[in-house]
């Protein structure tokens, strides 16, 4: 086994270290190789313990086997080559290196031989560096010995603050204690330890210290030179007891026992107390309890109050440590009679009865009730004292909160002034008397000038200006004696009040106010019991965003506007003062907003697009936030209201106007129109033919009789229009319609014949179907007399035998035949039949008219040629004006025309 020289580093000084190094090198250079493993050199020292932050020097000694010199040696810290500047050549075979140890310094230090360009570097030797810090000095050493049984424990426990650096190396802590008589020590942890002295060294002086040691050194804390009593911490006083004594309602006697015998430690005590549940401890002045005693009388306590008492102790000179507080001991002080007035107040409730109000009298227990209030005695004006008992369930005098006790509710005239007096009583006695004056409504003292509020440190504060009162002849004193602050919750109507002194101008509300709740705060100036007028203001302890948004609805939608309406948010949900409303309306992805004031509850949004969908919501805002209403969708109208009606009316008017214009044009241009429609036809009467009509020589040129069947028979109404109508109306009122139909038909037939004479011509074969009243076209014809009007007696045949030629007219009509035609046997038929023009050509064998018809037929046959000759002139015939009908131009019945158109002409329709 190879032997190496292990030299401690950091402990010995440099000169001795250098000497040892040289000796080692000499020995190593001379020593033979003793291992089967070829070694090329070694590093001194081996596996050193190095201190972080300090320099470390190592020496590499090269053996002959390495075939290297000092120039070939270089150092590496793991993979990093140490610069040559840190090397020191000792001789040809030894090179040392000095490095500064840091936390980052690699653990391995290698000595290598530089290789040839073809060969790799060769490691000659390596050492492992163990880094660490020297121990740090502990500070703030303190020791304690607690009580164990009836004595002080022999174990003294100490604590200290160790160093702040990490303990890389294993470190031991040892606690030492030295007495005059002996030294003691004990193993300790990093920051605490204890020594067992066997017997606690009472009344002795001792020294305590801590030693910290690791491989890099040892360090000792400062010595704690201490008197043994300074270590002592006794148990808390035992058997703490509180005695409540009758007739001593404001004191409690506290007693206890010493936790340890006075020969060990002479103690002094400390007492503290508080009311149950308050946690607000009051300490008895230390001077009162510094003597070695076992009882103390607490004074100036509140009657009928439960107190918690704790006691602790310490060496009477203040050495050592305070013991822990003893366990809670509770006791209640005896009751005493109330020593303050009950808090009397009233609430005025408006009454439905005119000139009357209702007064609710209420009170709170006296601040110093000194016991459980069992009842109240109340007297109103000059009445008797009445007792109002208070149930246990109604009142808990032990609670910190003073409850409001409603006493009376009485009607009170506006013109009445009264004094209310009240006393509270408990099991011991009565309280002083409280009084309150309710003035006449007209005599109420003035209110404060102004009132404001603010919040500060989570409390609601009220500030006011006192009333400006001048001495007058009023029944009350002009000086304000106190103020009453009354607050009423808007949400639930809960109310409370508090009293403030006359000089107070700013006061915090002492009640348990809720956040986001609206309170109506009133300040009443009090004038020696007289209640002044209140001044009220709304306030919030803390405002928040409204609990809900306003309820919005669309009141009206128009083409370009919409009227929105919303309700005010209920007061209990506003959670703050509404600062404004913001209306948002969204269409087509664009949002617009309008801010309106708080007193606005409807708004007409204008400039909206017509026939568009809008989403609307209204946001209510307070200083602390905003809340939106639910979205409301609606569509604007395509047309404004009345717009459609206007269009319809205008179109109608335009149409009517155009119609009227057309009619007027027609009327004014009737002649020209008529001429266009009915071109003028030469009057046959003026024809030269008429002059030669008696001359029948030309008849030889007329077609033969065989062609008669092809001749159209045209029925021409030759009656005068006026006479026909009058006759129809007078004689046949019940047949009016049929008449009109007949006339119309005739007109149509006539018109048809006039406008299109060729179309009106039909075969004579079709005449055989006449008399059928079917829906199909009925062709009928009549013989047109050459003279007379409808209803007139036809001209006697002899007269007409030479000059009149019966003519046949034919009409095409879908109208059924007139009754007179269908039933010619009636009187009317007979009357009609007197007119030969209404006779029927075929089948005219009815009644008395049969002869006439036959005669007409015969005449027709005789005059067949003539008819056929005149038929093409029907149009001209129909153009004849009624004035020309049957009359000569001179107004006298002229000679009978030889053909029909000259006799009757065209009959206009009725």
């Amino acid at each position: 086994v190879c032997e190496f020289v292990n030299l401690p580093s950091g402990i010995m000084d440099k000169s001795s270290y250098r000497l040892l190094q040289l000796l080692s090198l000499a020995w190593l250079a001379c020593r033979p190789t003793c291992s089967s493993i070829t070694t090329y050199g070694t590093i001194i020292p081996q596996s050193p313990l190095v201190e972080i932050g300090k320099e470390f020097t190592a020496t590499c000694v090269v053996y002959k086997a390495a075939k290297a010199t000092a120039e070939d040696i270089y150092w590496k810290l793991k993979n990093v080559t140490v610069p040559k500047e840190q090397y020191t050549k000792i001789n040809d075979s030894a090179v040392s290196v000095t490095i500064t140890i840091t936390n980052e310094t690699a653990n391995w230090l290698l000595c290598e031989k530089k290789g040839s360009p073809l060969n790799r570097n060769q490691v000659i030797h390596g050492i492992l560096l163990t880094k660490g810090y020297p121990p740090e000095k502990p500070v703030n050493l303190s020791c304690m010995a607690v009580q164990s049984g009836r004595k002080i424990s022999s174990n003294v426990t100490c604590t200290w603050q160790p160093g702040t650096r990490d303990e890389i190396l294993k470190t031991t802590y040892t606690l030492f204690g030295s007495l005059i008589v002996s030294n003691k020590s004990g193993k300790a942890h990093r920051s605490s330890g204890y020594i067992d002295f066997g017997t606690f060294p009472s009344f002795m002086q001792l020294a305590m210290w801590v030693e910290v040691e690791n491989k890099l050194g040892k360090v000792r804390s400062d010595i704690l030179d201490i008197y043994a009593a300074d270590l002592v911490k006794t148990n808390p006083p035992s058997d703490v007891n509180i005695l409540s004594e009758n007739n001593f309602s404001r004191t409690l006697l506290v007693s206890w026992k010493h936790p340890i015998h006075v020969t060990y430690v002479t103690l002094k005590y400390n007492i503290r107390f508080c009311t149950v549940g308050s946690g607000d401890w009051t300490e008895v002045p230390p001077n009162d309890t510094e003597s070695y005693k076992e009882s103390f009388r607490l004074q100036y306590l509140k009657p009928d109050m439960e107190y918690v008492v704790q006691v602790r102790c310490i060496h009477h000179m203040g050495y050592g440590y305070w013991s822990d507080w003893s366990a809670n001991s509770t006791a209640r002080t005896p009751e005493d009679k109330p020593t303050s007035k009950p808090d009397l107040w009233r609430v005025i409730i408006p009454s439905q009865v005119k000139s009357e109000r209702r007064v609710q009298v209420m009170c709170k227990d006296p601040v110093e009730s000194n016991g459980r209030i069992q009842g109240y005695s109340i007297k109103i004006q000059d009445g008797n004292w009445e007792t109002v008992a208070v149930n246990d369930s109604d009142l808990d005098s032990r609670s910190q909160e003073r409850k409001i006790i409603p006493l009376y509710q009485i009607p009170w005239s506006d013109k009445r002034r009264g004094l209310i007096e009240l006393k509270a009583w408990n099991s011991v006695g009565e309280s002083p008397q409280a009084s309150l004056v309710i003035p006449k409504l007209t005599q109420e003292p003035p209110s404060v000038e102004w009132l404001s509020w603010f919040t500060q440190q989570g409390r609601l504060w009220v500030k006011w200006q006192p009333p400006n009162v001048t001495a007058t002849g009023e029944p009350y004193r002009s000086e304000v004696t106190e103020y009453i602050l009354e607050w009423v919750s808007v949400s639930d109507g809960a109310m409370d009040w508090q009293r403030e002194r006359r000089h107070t101008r700013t006061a915090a509300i002492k009640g348990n106010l809720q956040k986001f709740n609206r309170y109506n705060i009133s300040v009443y100036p009090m004038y020696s019991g007289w209640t002044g007028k209140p001044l009220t203001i709304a306030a919030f302890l803390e405002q928040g965003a409204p609990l809900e948004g306003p309820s919005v609805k669309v009141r009206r939608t128009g083409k370009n506007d919409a009227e929105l309406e919303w309700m005010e948010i209920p007061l209990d949900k506003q959670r703050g003062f509404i600062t404004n409303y913001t209306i948002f309306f969204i269409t087509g992805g664009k949002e617009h907003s309008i801010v309106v004031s708080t007193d606005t509850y409807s708004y007409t949004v204008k400039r909206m697009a017509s026939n568009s969908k809008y989403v609307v919501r209204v946001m209510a805002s307070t200083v602390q936030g905003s809340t939106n209403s639910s979205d409301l969708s609606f569509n604007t109208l395509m047309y404004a209201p009345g717009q459609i009606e206007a269009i319809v009316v205008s179109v109608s008017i335009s149409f009517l106007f155009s119609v009227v214009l057309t009619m007027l044009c027609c009327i004014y241009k009737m002649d020209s129109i008529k001429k266009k429609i009915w071109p003028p036809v030469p009057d046959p009467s003026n024809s030269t033919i008429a002059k030669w009509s008696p001359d029948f020589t030309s008849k030889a040129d007329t077609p033969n009789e065989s062609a008669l069947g092809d001749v159209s028979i045209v029925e021409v109404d030759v009656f005068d229009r006026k006479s026909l109508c009058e006759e129809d109306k007078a004689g046949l009122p019940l047949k009016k319609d049929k008449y009109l139909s007949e006339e119309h038909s005739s007109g149509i037939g006539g018109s048809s014949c006039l406008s299109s004479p060729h179309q009106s011509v039909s075969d004579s074969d079709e005449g055989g179907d006449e008399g059928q009243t079917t829906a199909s076209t009925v062709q009928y014809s009549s013989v047109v007399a050459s003279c007379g009007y409808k209803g007139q007696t036809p001209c006697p045949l002899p007269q007409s035998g030479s000059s009149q030629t019966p003519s046949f007219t034919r009409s095409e009509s879908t109208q059924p035949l007139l009754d007179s035609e269908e039933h010619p046997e009636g009187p009317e038929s007979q009357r009609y039949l007197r007119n030969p023009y209404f006779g029927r050509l075929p089948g005219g064998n009815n009644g008395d008219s049969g002869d006439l018809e036959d005669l007409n037929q015969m005449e027709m046959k005789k005059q067949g040629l003539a008819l056929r000759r005149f038929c093409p002139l029907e149009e001209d015939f129909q153009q004849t004006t009624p004035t020309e009908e049957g009359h000569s131009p001179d107004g006298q019945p002229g000679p009978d025309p030889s053909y029909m158109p000259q006799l009757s002409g065209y009959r206009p329709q009725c």
Partner: protein
Amino acid sequence: MSGHVKNMYPQLSISQAARTLLSLLLVAAIDSMNAGIACRNQQCESHIQRSSKLTRLIHMESVDLLKIYKASQGDLSELFCQMPINIVPNPNISGLDPSERMLSIYSHCKAFLPHLKRVTEQQRDLQPPSSPLLNNLTTAQYRTSGLANQIKCIYQTLFPNLPIPLEPVDGPTSIHPSQNVFQQKVYGCVVLKNFKELLSQIRHELRTIKNQMCKSRTFAYTNALF
């Protein structure tokens, strides 16, 4: 005798044995008076005050110790304490002036220590290891040693030019080499009885010395302590 005691109480726990060993070490340490911290230059009043309180404590414990001793000796315990024994130091403090009386206190404390040690050894054979008597005897030695050192410091403070003799003023303590159980019980009771009496006298002496020696020096401080 030791083997007999061990046979009688084989159920002893390790902790008790350790406590006994600790007591032995403590007693051994008492002999090395210079092992602890040296006297400090303190106020006369404070010195004597602490010593008085320590004396009072040891005296109170010696009363209890004697009661426990008598209770643990069985029958005839009262008889043991009435037997005359010459080898026990006389508890009377001697001397004409405060320095002599202080020196007498110191000598008596030192003189009683070997007797207390002897009684402790004897009772360790007679009593079970868990007996409170042994602990109290050890504590008495421990506190008496401390008291002796405090008296020495006070003496050096009050009379810095007077040497402290190496041997007790009353001469070296002679302890009878061999005693039987009866003699041991009688011896122990007389030692504790005289020890109690000694402490009573030391209390008285210290109060006197304090009044004589410290009144003019630290009057104000005295009032604070009392």
